[in-house]
Structures are given as C-alpha cells and as structure tokens.
C-alpha cells in the first residue's frame, strides 16, 4: 500500500515532464526485478556517500565526542576563522596548491610529449614493449614507490647521487630528503615516474582516432614530421586534453597524500605538509574533529568551485563539458 502511494506521488511528479517514462503501478510491477537489483545499491550509496555529509555540521560546532550530537555547542564560523589565522594551515594550503599545480603541468606536458614520440615509433614490437614497461609503475602502491624513491635518493649508494656525482653535476652526494627546497621537485618527478606511461594511454587512443587522410593531405602540402604533429596531431587530441584538464582542475586540492605523509619528516615539513595531513594531524591524532572537518570542507568547497569554473570556461570555448 505504501508503495502504491509513493508510486502515485511519483506519477504526479513525472506527469509534468513529457519526456520521462510514466511511473505507474503496472510498470513498477513489471520492473520489480530491476528495482530489486538496483534499489539496494541506491540505499547503499546513500549510506556510504551521502549520509556522512551530515558530519559537515561538526565544523560549526565545538565537537566533543563524549556528548551527543545535539548537545554540542554551536560556534558558527569560529573554526574557519581559526583556520585562516593559523600559519600552519596557510602553509599547508600553499603546499597543496603548489604541488598540485606542479603535478598537473608536469603530467600533462610529459604525457603529451611521450604520446607524440610513441606515435612516431614504427616498430610495433618496440612500441608495445615501451608501453608495457611504462604502464607498470602505475599499478604499484604509493608505499612501494615511496620506498623506492627513498632508496634511490639515499646518500649511501642511492643511484641518483651516484649518477649525478659521476656526471660531475654535483660534487658530493646531496641528502635530497632532508632539504625542503627539493621536496616539491621530488614529488613532481616521482609523479611523472609513476604515472607517465598511464597518462599517455588516453592520448594514444585519441591519436589513433585521427583520420589518416589528414596526415596525407598535410604531407601533400609539404608538411614534415613536426608540422604534422603541430597542425594535425595536436589539434586532434585537443578535445581529449580539455576534458582531462577540466577533470583534473576539479582535483586541484588533491596534491597526493601518501608521498607527502611518508617522506615529509622533520626538516622538510614546511614544504611537504598538505591539507590532508593537517586534517589527519588535528582530527585523528589530536581529536580536534571540528577543526579538521572545517579544513576538509574548505578543501571540498574550493574543489567544487574550481570544477564549475573550469566547466564554464570550457562551455565558453565551445569545448566538450563534463557536467
């Protein structure tokens, strides 16, 4: 009976829209198997992804775990005010944004260059081999990669120091992981090492979709290898590039977490700590849930604003959009 009523209510709502399927009791009965196969998943996602948003209210309270949710003291925007006065938070915000932009730019430039170069390889076997090897690090966890980075950069027989000393670029081994000024660069380079091959996949797919006739026509017009790259290949992957760019701008507050958390020790903390680590530090280690939640909200809000901005810019430019 309850179902019946809901169905009627839905029916009324749907009736206004000419496009939607009409929901009638009959269709619901007919589609009962589809409903049984999907509504539990709907409830599941509501619980695990939507219900926790309720917790955002904590940011406006002075949350004490001992008390019930409604007995908490409401403090308005006090937590946010504290955040913007906290030098550590400002510093972490700077680190997050900087590392994220470094990663963004490096990963786009290197992926496109590698895709263009891979595309020029005519020997299929060699090309496959390069691709297979270059995808591999993507599947390794950040813990493993961080361990590898630490080994490679170590002052006692780390390969990076050995090679640089042998080449005469530096005189004596540098302790890369204990000086803040190198940290962003290390994170950027590690990201490239891990994701470079993987990032090329989509571009290579887009390149194969380019009409070969365009290359022939360009060739007839006298375009050489580089002119073809510039005038045919690059415009051919522009749409893919824009969609990916918009997606990553939505992730501008994600500078990565694990490498900073695992390698950011003592002396480099000023350059390595990100907002995520700030959240962990205050929320999980010091039980200051309200402040940590406020920091988390700040991060989400910036991300959402950036996503909409990017989406709008893409719309203006007449490119494909995400939402």
């Amino acid at each position: 009976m309850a179902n019946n009523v809901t169905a009627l209510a839905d029916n009324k709502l749907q009736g206004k829209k000419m496009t939607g399927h009409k929901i009638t009791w009959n269709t619901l009965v007919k589609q009962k198997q589809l409903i049984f196969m999907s509504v539990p998943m709907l409830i599941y996602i509501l619980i695990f992804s939507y219900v926790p948003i309720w917790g955002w209210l904590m940011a406006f309270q002075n949350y004490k775990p001992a008390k019930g949710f409604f007995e908490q003291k409401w403090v308005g925007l006090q937590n946010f005010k504290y955040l913007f006065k906290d030098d550590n938070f400002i510093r972490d915000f700077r680190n997050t944004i900087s590392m994220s932009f470094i990663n963004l730019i490096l990963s786009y430039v290197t992926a496109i260059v590698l895709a263009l170069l891979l595309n020029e390889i005519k020997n299929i076997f060699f090309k496959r081999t390069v691709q297979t090897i270059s995808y591999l690090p993507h599947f390794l966890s950040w813990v493993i990669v961080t361990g590898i980075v630490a080994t490679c950069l170590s002052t006692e027989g780390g390969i990076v120091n050995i090679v640089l000393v042998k080449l005469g670029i530096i005189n004596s081994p540098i302790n890369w992981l204990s000086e803040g000024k190198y940290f962003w660069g290390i994170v950027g380079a590690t990201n490239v090492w891990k994701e470079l091959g993987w990032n090329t996949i989509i571009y290579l797919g887009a390149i194969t979709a380019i009409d070969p006739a365009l290359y022939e026509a360009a060739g007839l017009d006298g375009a050489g290898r580089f002119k073809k790259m510039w005038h045919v290949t690059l415009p051919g992957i522009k749409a893919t590039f824009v969609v990916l760019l918009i997606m990553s701008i939505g992730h501008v507050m994600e500078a990565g977490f694990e490498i900073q958390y695992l390698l950011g020790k003592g002396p480099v903390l000023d350059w390595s700590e990100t907002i995520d680590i700030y959240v962990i530090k205050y929320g999980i280690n010091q039980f200051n849930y309200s402040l940590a939640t406020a920091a988390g909200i700040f991060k989400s809000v910036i991300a959402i604003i950036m996503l909409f901005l990017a989406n709008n810019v893409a719309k203006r430019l007449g490119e494909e959009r995400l939402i």
Partner: protein
Amino acid sequence: MINQRKPVRIGDVVFNTFNFVFMATLMIVTLYPFLNTLAISFNNGVDTLRGGIYLWPREFSLQNYKAIFIGGNVFHAFLVSVERTVLSTLANLFLTTMLSFTLSRKEYVFRKPITIIFVLTMYFNAGIIPNYFLIKNLHLLNSFWVYVLPSMIAAFNMIVIRTFIIGIPESFVESARIDGAGDFRIFMQVIFPLCKPVLATIALFVAVGAWNTWFDTFLYCSSKQNLSTLQYELMKLLSSTQNFNSNPALAAGVGANSQTADTMVTSLSIRAAITIVAAVPIIVVYPFLQRYFVVGLNVGGVKE
C-alpha cells in the same frame, strides 16, 4: 609551402635515433629501481650497507624473506591483504555489473535518478573525519568488513560497465525475454557472461586498489594487529626508519620473531623484501590483464 619540402632523410635518422635513445632511457629509468630493490632483497643485509649493490646481489641470502615469512606479523598481513582483495573484487564485480545492467535498461523508470546519484559521488567526498564517524557509527571500526563494505561499488566502474552493456546488441535480451526469462535471469545468464572483457579491466582496477591501500587500515584498524595489511606493514616500516638510514635495531622489531636471524637483516633489506612481496602479485597478474585495460579505459572516456 611547397618549396619547403625536401627529403628529410638525415633529419629522420637523427629523430629516430633520438627517439630510440629516449625510449631506451625511459625503460631503464622505469625498471632500474625494481631490479635494484630485487637485488637488495636477496642480498645479505649487513653486506648491503657497504653500498654498491646495483642489479645483482653480492652475497646471496634468503635471510630477508625468512625474516618476513617465518612466524612474523608480515605473513599474517599478507594473508589479510589477499583476503580483502579477493572479497572486494568479487563483491565489486557482481554488484557493480548488476547495477550497471539495470541502469542500461532504457525502459527502467528509476534509471535517470539513480544514475545521477551515483555519478555525483565521483565529484565530492564528505572528507576524512565525517567518513570516520560513519564507520564508527556503523560499528565497523576494528572489523575486517571495513575493508570490503565501504568500497563495493564505484561510480566510475559503473559507467564503464554500463557503456559496455549498452554496446551489447539488444537482440540478446529480447530473445531471452521471448523464452520467458525475467530481468534477473537475463542478467545472470546472458549479460553477465558477455561482460567478461570489461570485467577483466574492472577486476584489475579494483584488485590493484584493494591490494595497494593502507589508509583504511591506518584509520580504522590500526589498533588491531591481526587486521593489519601488507601495505600497512610496509608503510609502518617506511615511516619508522628515520631519514631512511639503515638501522639494524629497528628491523629486529619489525621483521619477525626475535630469532638470531635478526642480526643478519637491516631495515633497508627488510624494506626491499617487503616491497618485492607487495609488488610481485601485481607484476605477475599484470601481463595477463594488460590487453584489457586499454580497451576499458577508452570505454570509460565515453561520457554519458
């Protein structure tokens, strides 16, 4: 333009040579760290401290692996990792495919709203602390199920599978329906088996994700040693070795049972061995699934 045209033979040779050298360097830079770690993991721990291990162990030794696998926490963590990976993958494959099937049916009345509710989850996340409270309120803290339950369906995978199902000719479904099959039977007996190629991709994504994560162990199960995972053990080892200098005393606590074997291992070599143990399953499975994931990724690129 025409007069710029010239036979660029020399240019081609230079370019191709450059390209070859570049690719070769790329492969070396990608592979060397693994091979080096592999060599260290099979080398005598104390000897490694003298430096100079590159691609081949100097004093071959299985001590590091023994220290990990005999009676230690690491072996148990390995089993937990395997268990969570298998369960997560199975749950994800079945549930996500079933959901994707319903959302691929054009006649399904709730198709639009459910799709939107799922897709939105790709763009926002409640954050670490609210999620922690959710897990706490669901009484999943320090429970094995926290590894499986919160990540059973991912919107991105749903889109990939749904795109694949939409590509399956409608006649398969229609003929099954004429034979009297209901939606559930159509899914189980017709659609699910046809999805094998895309499921290989998704299985790879999910399994790799489940195998590689340590954050949920850290956040939700850190006080229970018997729920520790391999990556978490590796992470603890990494963050405890201050400045990554090798410290034999520390390794004794991490590696294993407190046998005399510990004098032979150092945290550097234990770390190398755990790295290899954590990486090997992926390196073994990877070549078999490789041909699928490129396809899957390109399908995922097709938007709504």
